[in-house]
C-alpha cells in the first residue's frame, strides 16, 4: 500500500465572521507521488482546503494530517510547513528578496540551516526549476512564470514532500502557465513530490492523476480526469467547464455519434472521429 501524504478526516472549517461553514465534513486522502487537481468555483472552499493542508488554518472540526503529523499539533508546525510547501496566485506577493538566490535562501535562513548546506540546496533547487541562469538576477525583472518558478525553488530548497499550489497560474499568460505547470509535472514525475494543484483551468486539471471537485464546501465529484470530465452536465451544474474536446464529444454523442466516453485532447478526438469516419484505416 502507498504511503499517505495528506489527509483530511471529517474536516469542517468556519470562518470567524461567518455563520456557514466554508468546508463541511470533508474527508480525503492523498498518497505519496499523486498529482491531484482540485476544482471548484469561487467561494467553493477549495482555497480554504489548501490553507488547511499546511496549517495556515486549523480545522474547526475534524483532523488534517500532513505526513502523519496533526496540523493542530503546535509543536510540529515548522515540520508541517516544511513538508507541505505552498505557492499562491500572485507572483509579486511571494518574493521577498532583491536577488533570486537570496529569495530561494529565505526559508532555509529562517530555519537556521548552515551556510555550507544551504548553498548546494539553493543551486539544486534553482536547477530543478531551470532558473540557474537567473540566480543573481533581480526578481522584478523576471516574467510572471519565472517568478512562480523562483517561488517553487524556494519551497524545493526546504526539501518538502508535498507542493500545494493555489491557482498558481491564474495570473500568468499561456506560455507562463505552460512553463509553471511543466515544471511542477516534472518535479512530480522525477522527484516524486506529491502535488495538490488548485486551478480554474480545466485543461490543466486534465493532466492530473486525480481530480477532486469541491462545491459549497463539500466534495461533489472525484475520479480520474476522464471519469470526471465525461460528466459534462454535472460539471455545468457545478458552474464549471470541461475541456473543450470533452464538451464537443458530449455534444456529438447527444446527436447520436457513437464516440467513446473520456475524450480529453485534440489528438484523442481526431483519432476517434477518424475511426468512425474511415473505419478501414
Amino acid at each position: 500500500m502507498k504511503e499517505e501524504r495528506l489527509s483530511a478526516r471529517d474536516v469542517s472549517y468556519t470562518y470567524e465572521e461567518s455563520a456557514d461553514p466554508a468546508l463541511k465534513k470533508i474527508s480525503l486522502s492523498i498518497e505519496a507521488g499523486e498529482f491531484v487537481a482540485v476544482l471548484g468555483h469561487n467561494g467553493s472552499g477549495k482555497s480554504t482546503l489548501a490553507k488547511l493542508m499546511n496549517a495556515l488554518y486549523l480545522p474547526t472540526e475534524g483532523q488534517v494530517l500532513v505526513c502523519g503529523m496533526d496540523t493542530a499539533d503546535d509543536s510540529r508546525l515548522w515540520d508541517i510547513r516544511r513538508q507541505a510547501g505552498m505557492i499562491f496566485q500572485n507572483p509579486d506577493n511571494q518574493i521577498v528578496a532583491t536577488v533570486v538566490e537570496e529569495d530561494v535562501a529565505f526559508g532555509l535562513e529562517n530555519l537556521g540551516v548552515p551556510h555550507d548546506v544551504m548553498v548546494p540546496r539553493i543551486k539544486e533547487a534553482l536547477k530543478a526549476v531551470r532558473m540557474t541562469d537567473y540566480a543573481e538576477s533581480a526578481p522584478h525583472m523576471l516574467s510572471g512564470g519565472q517568478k512562480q518558478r523562483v517561488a517553487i525553488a524556494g519551497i524545493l530548497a526546504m526539501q518538502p514532500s508535498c507542493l500545494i499550489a493555489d491557482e498558481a497560474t491564474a495570473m500568468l499568460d499561456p506560455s507562463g502557465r505552460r512553463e509553471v505547470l511543466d515544471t511542477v509535472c516534472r518535479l512530480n514525475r522525477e522527484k516524486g513530490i506529491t502535488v495538490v494543484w488548485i486551478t480554474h483551468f480545466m485543461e490543466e486539471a486534465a493532466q492530473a492523476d486525480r481530480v477532486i471537485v469541491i462545491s459549497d464546501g463539500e466534495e461533489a465529484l472525484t475520479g480520474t480526469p476522464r471519469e470526471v470530465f465525461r460528466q459534462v452536465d454535472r460539471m455545468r451544474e457545478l458552474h464549471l467547464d470541461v475541456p473543450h474536446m470533452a464538451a464537443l464529444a458530449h455534444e456529438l454523442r447527444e446527436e447520436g455519434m457513437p464516440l467513446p466516453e473520456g475524450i480529453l485532447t485534440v489528438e484523442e478526438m481526431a483519432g476517434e472521429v477518424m475511426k468512425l469516419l474511415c473505419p478501414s484505416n
Partner: protein
Amino acid sequence: MSIELKQVSHTYSEGSAFQSVALKNISLKIEDGEFVCLVGHTGCGKSTLVQHLNGLLKPTSGQVLVDGEDLNGEHVDRRKLRQRVGLVFQYPEYQLFEETVAKDIGFGPKNLGLDAAQIDARVRRAMERVHMDYNKYAQRSPFELSGGQMRRVAIAGVLAMEPEVLILDEPTAGLDPRGRDRILTMLEELHREGGTIVMVSHSMDDVARLATRVIVLAHGELVMTGTPREIFTRPERMEEIGLGVPDAARLCAELRRRGLDLPEDLYTQAELKEHILRAWKEARRAE
C-alpha cells in the same frame, strides 16, 4: 468615433540605461462598432498600445488620431477625450475604494459635476449593463463582494462615464469559469448595442467568441491582423509566434492532416460539430 495610430513608436526611459522599445512603427485604425482583440505575449507591447488609445501615454514618434484629430496636439482637451475612451486596467477591482458600490461607480460622474439625480441614473444604468442588481448591491461595500462581482463593479465605474469606446486589458484574468462567462456575455451585449470595444486577451477562446477583428503583436510590432477566421486558420503561424489557436481550430487542422475533407477555415466548436456530424452521416449512408 474612430481611433487611428499612424506609425506609432514608444520607447520607455529613452536615453537612459534602461531604455526599452515597447512599440515599433504601429499603424492601425479602430472603427466605430468594431470589437477588436489584441493578442500577443506578455511584454509584446499590448498594454503600452492601449494606453496610447486614450492618451495616457504619448508616442515617442508617430501620431494618434481621434476622429482625424491629433490626440497629442496642442489644443486638444485630453481630459474630455478620456471620457470618450474608457480604459479598464488589469485587475481593476484593486482600484475600488469607496464605502458603497453606488458611490464607487458614481465617483467619475460626480467628478464631472453632475447632480445627484443624474449620478444616480448613471449608476443604475451602469449596474444594469454589468448585470448587478441595483436594489441588492448598490448600498453594499464593494469589498464584501466576490472577485467576479468586484470586477464588474469596477467596469461599471468606467461605463458610468458613458464612453464611446471601451478598452479592457485582460478583463477575465484570474476569474473562475462562471465569472469569466458573465464578463464575456456582458461585453457581447455592449457590442451588440453598438459599442466599440478593444480587448486585450490571452484567451484565444474568448477572442474567437467575441472579436470582429484580431490584431497580433510580437516584440512591439504588428505582425498580423484579420478576422478571427483569417487568424485562427493559420495555426502554424500563430504557434510560430508562440501563441495558440482555439482547440476547435487545432482539431480542424488535425482532422485535415489525417485526410478528412473539411474546409480549412473552421475555428468554432459549433462549426466543427456541424461538419463532423455531416461527414459522419455521409459515411454511414455510403456504407
